[in-house]
């Protein structure tokens, strides 16, 4: 492990060479938008919001997986990046049925706040209006696939932290969707421990506690780092 110096947005910074651009940026209060990344879980690299420019490379690089190197020069903001991030978030809005005004996570939603931070005030792409059925069979939680953005945080937390692997993704492409067990009702799942971690890490109102009304569902994704830390200490 070595300490390296690099430049992010004209700021000279230092970081460890096992850290990602995202980690170093975060440590220095430089905001890079993310949706699938969550501290304490494995890296997914699917949302593409954290793409940044690295000088000397034609391709954009995901900040969540790219490790910092000595002398690296990174730009996290540009008109081009903003256009890309804008369009990707618009894509998410068109892919599902996101009705913020009636959502349990209204005001506590990472998709909503990301859109706001990016300056999105309307969606110019046509909505796809998929037909998806809500699963309210679990005694404590509800899964509303209309609000799912397939970040797979629930899949990862269930597999990596809880160890149950109740959730996974089925199908592919635009037909990808979350399932529990063999695509059975969540309430019938034999593997679910009802621990609720999936609900806590869900960035939107797709997974929520029963009985919550519009805007009442507040998530606590930060608990994960605590669990991770505790586990490390036990080892």
């Amino acid at each position: 492990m070595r300490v390296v110096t690099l430049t992010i947005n004209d700021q000279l910074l230092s970081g460890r060479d096992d850290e990602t651009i995202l980690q170093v940026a975060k440590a220095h209060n430089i905001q890079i938008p993310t949706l699938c990344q969550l501290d304490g879980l494995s890296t997914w690299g699917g949302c593409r919001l954290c793409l940044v420019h690295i000088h000397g490379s034609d391709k954009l690089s995901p900040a969540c997986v790219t490790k910092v190197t000595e002398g690296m020069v990174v730009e996290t903001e540009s008109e081009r990046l903003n256009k890309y991030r804008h369009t990707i978030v618009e894509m998410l809005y068109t892919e599902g049925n996101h009705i913020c005004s009636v959502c349990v996570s209204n005001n506590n939603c990472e998709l909503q706040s990301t859109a706001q931070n990016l300056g999105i005030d309307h969606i110019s792409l046509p909505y796809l209006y998929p037909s998806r059925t809500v699963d309210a069979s679990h005694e404590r939680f509800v899964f509303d696939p209309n609000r799912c953005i397939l970040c797979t945080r629930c899949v990862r937390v269930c597999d990596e932290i809880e160890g149950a692997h109740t959730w996974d993704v089925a199908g592919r492409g635009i037909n990808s969707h979350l399932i529990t067990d063999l695509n059975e009702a969540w309430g019938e799942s034999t593997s679910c421990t009802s621990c609720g971690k999936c609900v806590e890490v869900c960035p939107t109102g797709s997974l929520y506690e029963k009985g919550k009304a519009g805007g009442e569902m507040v998530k606590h994704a930060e608990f994960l780092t605590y669990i991770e830390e505790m586990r490390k200490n036990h080892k």
Partner: protein
Amino acid sequence: MNANNLNNSKAQTIRSNDDLLLCAEREKDRQAQYKQNLFVCMGTACQSCGSTEVLKALSSRIKDLGLEKDYLISPGGCQGNCSQAPLVSVHPQNVLYQNISPQNTNDIIGSLKGSPIKELSCDNQSSFFARQTRIVTEYRGLLNPERIEDYIAVGGFSSLLKVLTQMSPSQVIQEITCSGLRGRGGAGYPTGLKWSTVAKANDSQKYVICNADEGDPGAFMNRNVLEDYPYKILEGMTIAGYAVGANQGYVYVRAEYDVAVKRVENAIKNMQRLALLGNSIGNTSFNFNLEVRVGGGAFVCGEETALIASIEGGRALPSPRPPYPAESGLWGHPTLINNVETYGHIAPIIRNGSQWFANIGTQKSKGTKTFALSGCIKNTGLVEVALGTTLREMIFDIGGGVPEGRKFKAVQTGGPAGGCIPESQLDASIDYESLKSLGSFMGSGGMIVMDDSSCMVDVAKYFMQFCAAESCGKCIPCRVGTVHIYDLLNKITKGEASLEDLSQLESLCDVVQNTSLCGLGQGAPNPVLSTLHFFKDEYIAHIVDHICPAGACGPKGQDLRRPACVL
């Protein structure tokens, strides 16, 4: 079946070059006993046109006539000119018969003693054959792909024994690097460089993978090569294993290619039987084993990280690179992944030397490449040409041009990540750089010719539908963006789009191309971008005049928005 004589008696192992030469001599002797050898093509096209019946009819007739000792009838590999299927070739008479049915059996057998039948034979000196340069498809159609001895008789495995006994791994890599060979899967990454990266990786466990998940619609080179030259591919893989320090290899084949799967499995068994796989190959300390893995039908498996995920038994989702498979691949170990055809070049390069190979092709693109010619062209089939051949030579000299007095419009190369090249660019040479500069892509080698009845917007839509259906769904731009692009193209083909839709289309292509995680998404907009570049007038005609000039999206000249006639 008719030749289980003493020459083929006890299976012996091959531990040295002498063993190999002995085996080759025996096989040559065996073949020389026959006055003529007849090979019936068992390629997909020939089989579907009845070559199995032809083989049966010929064999049983020869038997009835008691001529089994004079004539050997064997199933053979693809001859290349699939449009004339089924094909039968006769050697040493050197005749290729075309469009053969069981009714021709007597005539053919009758002619074996005398001169060939003119009416049935195909001109095997025509430019379709003469213009080709064969390395991977050497001995085209003249090897029984089931028999390892056929391959040994023409010098097979001499390269493997040469590297094991006379070369160090780094010398092998040096030789491949000097040859200038580049990956034949499409991207053209220097093979020697890839090998040396894996060789340098510090791990006691490494893997070699052959990517035979040929997924490009309109490409069947890998299928053909695996079906006809399984031993050559496996020899290449084994040499690669030695060079990079791997002891286990996997051939990842599409499930649809059932014949290829069987042939490769059979080839592995035969190599094991002769001790060309397993422990202490060639009496050296080199151990290497091979296994076949059958893919489940997902185009994204062509992406190396997705392919690895699939071999590991999971959903074939690509993962961000770095780390590259060369550092951390299959089960986290350094892994070499090359395309079928890349491995097909290895044994010939070792046998003939890197200089020989480097003399073929262009400055930056060395050697030959196989292509699957199809679509609106006279001679459909599989061809192998030196890189640097022009598209015009390929389509008009080798392919014989567009049939039925229609007009050539475009040639599509590079599969779903490729582009459509118009008439005006046909003098471009076929190599990695030149195709890229035309907004297309070498790809695995599909070449689909389109005439004036094809609409370029419709073609772009076809590819976008393919990419949307094959997107793995992991990253947002590919999962959702391809659907939006498809919807826009669909709107255009219905004559309902506006010029704003066209600019949104261009903007979406930019996003999907530059933000997608893997090659599938990054390449998906290419067919749209290349048709927009060369055939923008067709897009404009659909949008402004609401007509499809080619008559593919609706009756020619008729307003596309008019509802179809309901009877």
